[in-house]
């Protein structure tokens, strides 16, 4: 009893410390007698709000943005923030609110959820912050409903997934069975990729015999792929919504002794899949040029801020990357 009480003290103490440390630094301290600072700093401050920086796709994106800012330090200040947990929407909402409190000029955001963050972004826009949406598109219906205007800069995930699906379909014939391993079902890009894969399967007459969520994770996708391979012995291909899950699926195919008989496709073109593309165990993946994505978003934000450009959505390129076996 006593020990657990002291345990709580530890927790509270730690929280107080953390809270003290992470309190955003006071902006422009107004010392006595000094004139108030100019209302708008000459250099705009842009906040890049990501999903998990632990995810290498977003890590790459953030590095691209930092390099861009370093090269053009005179034009803007950059604040990069990521979440601890990729699926924790409330954490991202908190980040948005903190950025508004820091009085940034623009928020460039890769939303953790295509609907849940919209109210927070609307409040930001109402406070005069420009919102640019990258990567994962905010839900158009909810955008209309709330009246938030957010420029979208990003890849067409559906188009990219369709390209991957078509590449797989070229190796198969109509009537063959395929399985989908999807991302987190609530995420817009996951839904778009599933739609794109479906488009391609439908067009080529492939039959989708099973579809389950691998939650973007290698381990989970591996377990699902193994189960699906057992349950559907005639399966011809596994189409995955990202490369991590594709790695898990490839391991399951190898373990089942079906390398070469069951094709696997991915999405994102991360370094870890390069050897698999080379030896043919991964048929194709899709490169959406993640390192450029944040930079494109920032450039768009700066252009709108400087009134060089009127707000308009922009689609960034998605390219099919074919492995040894596809060629």
């Amino acid at each position: 009893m006593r020990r657990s009480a002291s345990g709580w003290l530890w927790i509270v103490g730690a929280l107080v410390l953390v809270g003290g440390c992470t309190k955003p630094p006071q902006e422009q301290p107004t010392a006595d007698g000094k004139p108030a600072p100019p209302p708008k700093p000459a250099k705009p401050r842009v906040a890049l709000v990501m999903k998990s920086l632990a995810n290498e796709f977003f890590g790459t994106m953030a590095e691209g943005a930092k390099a861009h800012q370093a090269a053009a330090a005179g034009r803007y200040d950059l604040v990069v923030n990521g979440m601890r947990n990729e699926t924790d929407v409330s954490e991202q909402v908190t980040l948005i609110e903190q950025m508004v409190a820091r009085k940034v000029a623009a928020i460039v955001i890769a939303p953790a959820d295509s609907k849940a963050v919209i109210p927070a972004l609307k409040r930001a826009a109402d406070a005069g912050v420009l919102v640019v949406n990258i990567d994962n598109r905010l839900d158009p219906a909810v955008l209309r409903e709330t009246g938030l205007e957010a420029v979208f800069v990003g890849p067409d995930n559906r188009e990219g997934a369709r390209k991957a699906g078509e590449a797989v379909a070229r190796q198969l014939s109509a009537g063959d069975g395929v399985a989908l391993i999807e991302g987190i079902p609530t995420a817009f890009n996951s839904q778009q990729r599933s739609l794109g894969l479906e488009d391609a399967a439908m067009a080529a007459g492939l039959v989708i015999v099973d579809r389950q969520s691998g939650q973007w994770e290698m381990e989970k996708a591996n377990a699902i792929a193994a189960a699906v391979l057992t349950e559907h012995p005639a399966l011809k291909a596994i189409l995955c919504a990202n490369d991590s899950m594709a790695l898990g699926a490839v391991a399951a195919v190898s373990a089942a002794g079906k390398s070469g008989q069951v094709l696997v496709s991915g999405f994102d073109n991360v370094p870890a899949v390069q050897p698999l593309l080379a030896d043919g165990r991964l048929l194709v993946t899709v490169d959406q040029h993640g390192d450029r994505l944040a930079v494109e978003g920032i450039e768009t934000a700066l252009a709108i801020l400087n009134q060089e450009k009127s707000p308009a959505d922009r689609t960034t390129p998605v390219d099919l990357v074919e492995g040894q076996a596809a060629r």
Partner: protein
Amino acid sequence: MINKTRLSEWGGLVLVWLAIVALFGLLAEHFLSAATFTTLAGRLPALAVIAAGMTLVVVSGGIDLSVGSVMALCGAVLGLAVTQWKWPLLAAVPLAILTGAAAGLTNGLLTAGLRIPSFLVTLGLLEVCRGLSYAVSGSRTLFIGAGIEPLARPLPFLGVPATVPAALLVVVTAQILLSKTVFGRHLVAIGTNENAVRLAGIDTRRAKVTVFLLSGALAGVAAVFAVARLGSADPNAGTGLELAAIAAVVIGGTSLAGGTGSVIGSLLGVLVIATLEAGLAQLGASEPLKRMVTGGVIIAAVAADGLRRRLSADRD
């Protein structure tokens, strides 16, 4: 502590497992096939060795929440050693296990030395090790491939990879450690009443540090198994694994209050959880259904165990 009660407990779990297998056999067309069980055999080792370490910790009245993160960290170190430093497996594997042991040692020293509850210490290490895992791997999945995959390839004659007998060896060793050695007796005693053990002139701190060290090292072993099976090291691996391990341990009849438990029981608990996962995936169950069924089975198993305990307590 292998007595009649334990045997009946294990028998009960085997029955539960058979019931789950039979149910999925009816529902899924190809569930009762060799492939299902080979897949299960491939998947079990990592969780089984983690659950073995967790059992020892829980029996001693503690808990280790850091196992999933420690496993990810060890996997990342293993991946780095093989791909970047070009170490041979014979050196990289021990390095991964040592990394786990170091994390476990930290848990143990903080828990026993500063007398902070293990729940809080390992919760802290959970975060620290996840961070280290990202830092070591640069947040990138490391592909190892042919270098490590042979470990996961089915052995001739046995039909299962070498990780399976290795994990069984770990489980049996841990069970023997728990029931046949002075160290095991000390763990049981500490989990029952640490104060009385100290006043009987026994060094409780040494046993506590050792048990956390073991748990960490076994998380390292699990990392080797997982990396071998997937052919790559994922810095995000093992998220939520501590909860799966605790569930398996509890299903296996170990009391979260400490003082009683068995490693073999935890192995059966792992078997139940992994079979459930495989069966639901073969059925193509939706994500919500999977989670609800898994949660329901955990509660049912623990409730059934509580009922059985009360009945047997009334008898003696």
